[in-house]
C-alpha cells in the first residue's frame, strides 16, 4: 500500500482470520475493523482467542488463513513497516528478565531506531514517569505490577501510532492504573489508536469507545459503547449474555 493510502486506512483491518492449534480453531473467521484514533476494547472469556489474536497482530505467530492489515500495511508482507509503528504491552514473557528496567527501556528504544543518547534520555524520563525504581534491580525481581509498568513504558518509548495491549492493567495498583489510563487517554487525544484486552469490564467501559467480544474464536459482537449503552445494558450484562455464562449461576444444593 502507498504511504498516502496507509495514512487513511483503518488502524486494524482483519478479514476472515483463522488460526488452528491442532484441529481446534483458536481464531475462527474473525472480521474486525478498528478505526484510527479509537480506544478499542477486545473482550472475551478465558480461552476465547483474545491472546492468539493479539499475538497474530503483533506478528509473533503466523495465521492460517484470512488477511490482516495494520495501519494500512499488510501482515506478514510488510511486517517491518507495521512493527515500526506499533507499541506493544505483551504478556510478561517478552520482557528480558535479566536487564534492569532502565536497561530494558534503553534497549527497546534502540531497537526502534532511536539514537542511544535519545533512548537513554527517554528511558530515564519513563522510569520517573512510571515511578520505577532506578536502582540495579533486574526485571526478574520486579513485582507483577512493576513488570506491567515497565512493559507499558517500553511501548511508549518510540511514540507509536497503534498500541496493542494484552491485559495492561493486570496486577497494577490503583495509582499505577490511574497513571496508565491518563497516559493512554493522552495518546488517543494525539491521534494514536489503542487496542487492548482486559478482563476488568469497568475499566473497558470507562475508557473504550468501541468494543468487540470474542467467544469460541468468533466475534460475537462489535459495536460502539454508545450503541451498547443505548440498549440499556451494562457491558458486564452484555458480556455475560453474549458468552452464555448465565446458566452457570445455578446454585449447587449443598452450597
Amino acid at each position, binding site marked *: 500500500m502507498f504511504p498516502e493510502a496507509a495514512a487513511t486506512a483503518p488502524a486494524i483491518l482483519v478479514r476472515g482470520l483463522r488460526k488452528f492449534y*491442532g484441529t481446534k480453531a483458536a481464531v475462527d473467521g474473525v472480521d474486525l475493523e478498528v478505526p484510527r484514533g479509537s480506544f478499542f476494547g477486545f473482550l472475551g472469556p478465558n480461552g476465547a482467542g483474545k491472546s492468539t489474536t493479539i499475538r497474530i497482530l503483533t*506478528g509473533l*505467530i503466523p495465521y492460517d488463513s484470512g488477511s490482516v492489515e495494520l495501519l494500512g500495511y499488510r501482515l506478514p508482507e510488510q511486517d*517491518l513497516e507495521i*512493527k515500526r509503528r506499533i507499541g506493544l504491552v505483551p504478556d*510478561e514473557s517478552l520482557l*528480558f528478565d535479566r536487564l534492569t528496567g532502565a536497561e530494558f527501556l534503553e534497549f527497546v528504544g534502540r531497537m526502534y531506531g532511536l539514537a542511544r543518547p535519545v533512548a537513554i534520555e527517554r528511558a530515564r524520563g519513563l522510569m520517573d514517569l512510571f515511578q520505577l525504581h532506578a536502582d540495579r534491580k*533486574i526485571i526478574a525481581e520486579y513485582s507483577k505490577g512493576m513488570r506491567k509498568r515497565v512493559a507499558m513504558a517500553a511501548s511508549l518509548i518510540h511514540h507509536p501510532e497503534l498500541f496493542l495491549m494484552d491485559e495492561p492493567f493486570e496486577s497494577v495498583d490503583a495509582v499505577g492504573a490511574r497513571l496508565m489510563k491518563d497516559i493512554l487517554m493522552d495518546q488517543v487525544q494525539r491521534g494514536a489508536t489503542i487496542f487492548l484486552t482486559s478482563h476488568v469490564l469497568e475499566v473497558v467501559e470507562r475508557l473504550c469507545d468501541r468494543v468487540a467480544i470474542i467467544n469460541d474464536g468468533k466475534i460475537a459482537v462489535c459495536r460502539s459503547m454508545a450503541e451498547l449503552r443505548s440498549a440499556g445494558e451494562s457491558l458486564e450484562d452484555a458480556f455475560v449474555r453474549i458468552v452464555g455464562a448465565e446458566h452457570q449461576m445455578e446454585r449447587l444444593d449443598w452450597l
Partner: protein
Amino acid sequence: MIAAILRAQFLSMRPGSNRGLGLGVVSAVFWYGFWLFVSLTAAFFAAHAPADMLPYGVPLGLAAVCIYWQAMPVLSASMGSSLDLRKILVYPAPHEKLFQIELLLRVTNSLEMIMLLGGAVIGLARNPACGGLKVLPSLAGAALVFALFNVLLASGTRSLLERLLARRKVREVVALLLAMVWVVPRFLVMTGTKTTWLQGAGAAMSAFGWPWSAAARAALPLGQSMGSTALSWLSLCIWVGLAAWFGRTQFERNLRYDTLAAQATPLKPASARTRLWSERFYRLPGILWSDPLAAIVEKELRTLMRSPRFRLVFVMGFTFGLMFWLPMVLRRNTSHSGFLAHNFLTIVCIYAMTLIGQVTYWNCFGIDRSAAVFYFVAPQPLSRTLLGKNIACLFFLYMEAIVLTALTFAVRLNFSPAQAVETFVVIGICAMYVMALGNISSVHYPRALSPERVSQSGGGNRAQALVALFYPVVLLPVVLAYIARYAFDSDAAFALVLSISAGIAVVFYWLAMDSAVKAATSRRQSIIEELSRGDGPVGS
C-alpha cells in the same frame, strides 16, 4: 540495533541479582580462568607435539572443539543466560540483521572455544615441526574459517534443537539422548569391548573430508602437495557453505515456528486400561495412609509424573546411571571392582536418588511452586506437607530401585536376592538422611523451577553448595556400616552398624523436620517471594 542487542546479551549474562554479584564474578573468573588454563595447556602441547602426532592429533582436537561448540549454545539457552531471538521478533529488525545477530550470539556463547583455538594456533606456530612462524597466516586463516563454520553450524543446530525441544515428549527424548551421548564413548572405552570399533571411529574422524580434518590440512600443509592443500581449502569452504545454508534455513524456520501450535498437538488419549493402571498407582497412597497425608502424596505423584523435568531425571536414573556405573563393574582388572560389583545395585540406586533429588527433596517446593502458597494457607501443619512430599519421593525412589534390580538381573551381574533386599534397606536409610537435609534446604534456599525446562539446575548456588558439602557427611553413618563389614569381615557387624544408622536417621529426620517447619513458619513470606520469581507458572 546489533550493538543494542549485543549489549543486552552481555547484560543478560550477569548474575541474577546484586546478592549474587560476587558469586557471579567469581564464577566468571573461574570459568574463563579455567578455559585460559586449558588454552595455555593446548598451546603448550601444540608447541611440543611431535611431527608424527600432528596429522591425527590436530583433526581430533578440532573435532572435539566442533562438538563442544555445537552443544554449548543449546545448554546456555536452556539455562536462560542467552538472549531469546523470539523476543526480538516484535521489534522492527530485518531477518538478515537478526541472522547476523544470531551468529554474533553464537560467538559470545562460545568465547572459550575461540580462546582454545587461539591457544592452539599460537602453540602450533611455535612448534618447529610445523614450520615455525611462516605457517602462522595459514594457521590463523584456517582457524578463522573453521570458527566461522562452527558458528554457522551452531546457529543451525540450536535452531533445529529448539524446535525439537518445543514438542512434548520429544524434548525429554532429545535431552536424554544428549546426556547419553556424553556417557556412551566412556562406556565403550571402559568396557573395552569395542576398542577396535572406537579406533576405527577415531581414524574415521581424522580422515580427509571432514570439516575438522580439512581445516587441519589447510592449516598445516605438512608434506602435502599444493593441489592437496588447495583441495583442503576447497573442502573447508564447501563445508562453510553448507553450514551457512543449514544455519540460515534453520534460523528462518525457527522464526516462523509456532511453539504454541506445536505444543497444542492433540495427545493420543490414553487407553482405558492405561488410565486404570495409572489411577491405581496414584490411588495407592490412599490405601496406605489416611487423608490429608494420602491426598498430599497422591497430588505429588501426579504432579511429578506430569512434569517433563522430573520424568527426564527419573528415566536418567536407570539409563544414564546404569551406563555410567556399569563399565566400572565390567572392568575386572581394577582393584576396587570387587566392592563395586558387590554393591553395584546400591551404588546405582543412590546415584538415581541423587538425580531425582534436584527436583524433589533438595528443593521440594520449587517444581510446583504455586502449590507452595496453598500449603502455607491449608489447615494442615507444614510437617505433614513435607512428609507427604518425602513419601512421594520414596515411591519414585523404590520404583527406580525395582527397575534397576530388574535391569541388573537382565545384564547378568552376579548378585543374590539378599543383596537386593540389602539395597532396598540401605537406600531407605540413605533417603531418610538426605530428605532430612533436603527439607532444611527446601525452606532455606527455595528456588523456582520450571517443570518444562529439562536442563535447568535444581537449586540456587547456596543450595548446591550445601548439597555438595553435606551430602557425603549425611551418608557417613551408612558408609560406616560398609566399613564395619570390611574391617570385621562380618555381615553381622554390617547389620549392627546399619541398624544404629537407621535409628540415628529416624532421630535426625524428625529433628530436621522440626527445624524445617520452624524455619518455614518464620520465612514464609520470603519463601513465597523466592518461588514467585522468574518466568514460570507463578511469575507470569
